[in-house]
C-alpha cells in the first residue's frame, strides 16, 4: 500500500538548516493500523505531512497504492489527496460556518458528486460515527469528541485508500480519546489502512504496529498486541 525509500526533508530557518527526516524507509500493507511514535521534534508530523501530500520531500521515493508520487503540481496533489487520502487532525479543522453534514460532504463536493447523493452519503457516514442527530449542528455546538468524530466521518466519506490521523486524540481527555480510538479500530477492522501519529503510549498500543522515530530516523519498528479501546469505554 505504502512504500517509502530513503526519504529526506530539511527546513531552512534563516541561516540554519534543520534536517528533520534523515532517510526514512518503510512499507505498510493493506489493512494495517500503524502508529508513528516519537517525542516532539522527532519528525513524525513532517513524515505524515509528506505522506499526505500536504508537504513535499526533498529526496526519496514514495509510492502509494502502486502510484509513484512525485513531481506534484498543486492541482495534481489536490486530485491525489481527494482520491487517495483522508485526514484527521489534532485540532479537528472543521469549517466553522458549515454544519456537521456539510463538513462531511465537502470532500465529495470536490469529487463533483451531485448534491443529493453527496448529502445521503455524508449522512450515512455521520450515522456510522453515531452523530446522525447532530447532522445540522455547527461545530461550535459540538463537544471535542463529537468534532473529532465528524472529522473522521469527513475523512472516510471520500472512501480513501489511506486514512492519516495526526494526533487525533491530542486535544481530547482520555475517555473521549478511547472513544475516538475505538472508532478508528472499527474502521480498521472493516479493512481500511490507517496511519496514526501520536506521542501517547496507550494510544500507540491500540494500533497493530508501532514505528518509533527519533531525530529523523526510524529507531524501532515493532508489531504489537493490539489493546482494544472498547475495553475502556
Amino acid at each position, binding site marked *: 500500500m505504502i512504500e517509502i525509500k530513503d526519504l529526506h526533508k530539511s527546513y531552512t530557518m534563516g541561516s540554519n538548516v534543520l534536517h528533520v527526516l534523515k532517510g526514512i524507509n518503510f512499507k505498510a500493507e493493506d489493512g494495517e493500523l500503524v502508529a508513528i511514535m516519537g517525542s516532539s521534534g522527532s519528525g513524525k508530523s513532517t513524515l505524515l505531512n509528506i505522506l499526505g501530500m500536504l508537504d513535499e520531500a526533498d529526496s526519496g521515493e514514495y509510492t502509494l497504492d502502486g502510484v509513484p508520487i512525485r513531481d506534484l503540481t498543486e492541482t495534481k496533489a*489536490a*486530485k491525489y489527496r481527494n482520491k487517495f487520502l483522508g485526514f484527521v487532525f489534532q485540532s479537528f479543522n472543521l*469549517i466553522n460556518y458549515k454544519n456537521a453534514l456539510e463538513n462531511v460532504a465537502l470532500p465529495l463536493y470536490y469529487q463533483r458528486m451531485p448534491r443529493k447523493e453527496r448529502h445521503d452519503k455524508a449522512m450515512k457516514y455521520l450515522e456510522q460515527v453515531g452523530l446522525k442527530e447532530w447532522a445540522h449542528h455547527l461545530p461550535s455546538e459540538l463537544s471535542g469528541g463529537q468534532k473529532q468524530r465528524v472529522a473522521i466521518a469527513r475523512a472516510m466519506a471520500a472512501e480513501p485508500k489511506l486514512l492519516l490521523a495526526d494526533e487525533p486524540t491530542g486535544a481530547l481527555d482520555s475517555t473521549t480519546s478511547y472513544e475516538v480510538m475505538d472508532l478508528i479500530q472499527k474502521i480498521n477492522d472493516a479493512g481500511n489502512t490507517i496511519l496514526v501519529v501520536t506521542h501517547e503510549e496507550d494510544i500507540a498500543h491500540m494500533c497493530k504496529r508501532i514505528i518509533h522515530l527519533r531525530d529523523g530516523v526510524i529507531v524501532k519498528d515493532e508489531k504489537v498486541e493490539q489493546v482494544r479501546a472498547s475495553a475502556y469505554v
Partner: protein
Amino acid sequence: MFSRDAWNEIFETIRKNKLRTFLSGFTVALGILIFVTLFGFGNGLINTFNKFFNEDATNVFYFFPGKTTMPYKGYKSNRQIEFDNTDIADIQKDFPMFLEYISPRISRSNLIRYQAESNNYTTHGVAPSHQFAEKTVIMKGRYLNLKDMKEKSKHVVIGRLVEQDLFGSRNSLGKYVDIGGSAFKVIGVFQDEGGDREERFVYMPYTTRQLIEKNTDKINMIVIGFKPEIGYAGAMAFESNLKKFLKGKKFIHPDDESGFFIRNVADQLEKNQQFTGVLKLIVAFVAIGTIIAGIIGISNIMVFVVKERTKELGIRKALGATPGNVISTILLESVFITTISGFVGMLIGILLLRSLDDRLEDFFITNPYIDTGTAVIATLMLVLFGSIAGYVPASKAARIKPIVALRDE
C-alpha cells in the same frame, strides 16, 4: 466553475458570513452611490451654468452704429454712422450662405397706458425673425409676422410682466394700449428666460416704428443670426467679411474700429463652453477619484477576506480543492457581491438624483442627472477592478501549502 453546485456553495458561504458580505457589499454600494451622486451634482452645476449664461441664442451678432475716428475719402472724422433699411437688404443679398436670419431693431422708451394704469417701457421695433435671436416664447396670441411688416400695422407683442403691470389679472389679447399717443392692439404675450427686464419689453413692427418717426428708414441696430453649422471658424470669417462690407459701404477707414461695434455671441459661447469644459473636467476628476477609492476599498477587503479564510482554504485544499477551485471560490463570491451591491448602489443613487429634481436649485444645482451608460460603466469598472484586485490575494492563497494554511490560527 459555473455549475449550479458551485453557485450553491457560494450562496451558502455568503449566507453564512453575513458580516463579510455586508462589509464588501457596503463598500461597493457606497462607492457607486457617491459616484453617481457627485456626477449628478456636477451635471446639475453645468445645467445651472448653462441656464444662467446661455439663455439667448448663441449664433447671433449685434451691430451697433458708432462714430468714426479717422477721416476717409473726403469724410471728416467724428462722423455719426447710421444704419438704414438698405443695409439689411444688402446683407441679405450678399451673404446668403452664412445668414440664417436678419432683423433690425429700433429701441425707444415709451410711456404705455391702458385705462388708468401706465408705465415707461422699452419698445423694440423688430422683424419677425427677431424672435429667434432672443428666444422669445409666446405664451398666448402670436408674434409679429411679415404681414404686420408690410402693412405697418399697429400691433404689439408685450412681455408677461407688462401684461401683469397694466392689465392685472385681466386678459390683454385684443385690447388696445396707448403708446406715445397712438393706439396699438395687443396681439401676443411672451415670456423670456432672460429675466424680469426682458419680460418688460414690448415688440412692434420696425416698419410701424419708422412710419411713426416721419417715415424714416434709419435703424438703431442690426441683429444677425448665422447658420449654426458654419461653426466657430465660419462665424469668425462671416464677422470679418461683414465688417469689410459695412466699412466699404459706409466709407469708414479700414483701420477705424469705431465706426460701428459688434457684439459677437459666438465669442461668448466659446468662453462659456470652455468654462463648461473645465466644470466637466473637475466632475470627471472627482468621479474617477471616487471610483479609485472604491477599488482600493474593495481590494483591502479582499486581502482581509483571504487572510481570514486562510485556514478554511487550507482545509479545503487538504480535502481535495485544486488551486483553481480556491481562486474561483473567492473570486466568484466577490464578483457576485460587488455586482449586486454595485447595481443596488447605482439604483439608489439614480433614484436619489431623481427625487432631488430641482430642490437644490438654491445651491446652483439644477436637475442633477447621470446618464445610465456612465453609471453602468462605472459600476462594471468597479466590479472588474475589484475582481482583479481580488485575484492577487486569491491566487496567493491558492499557492500557499495546505500545511502552512492549516497551522494558521
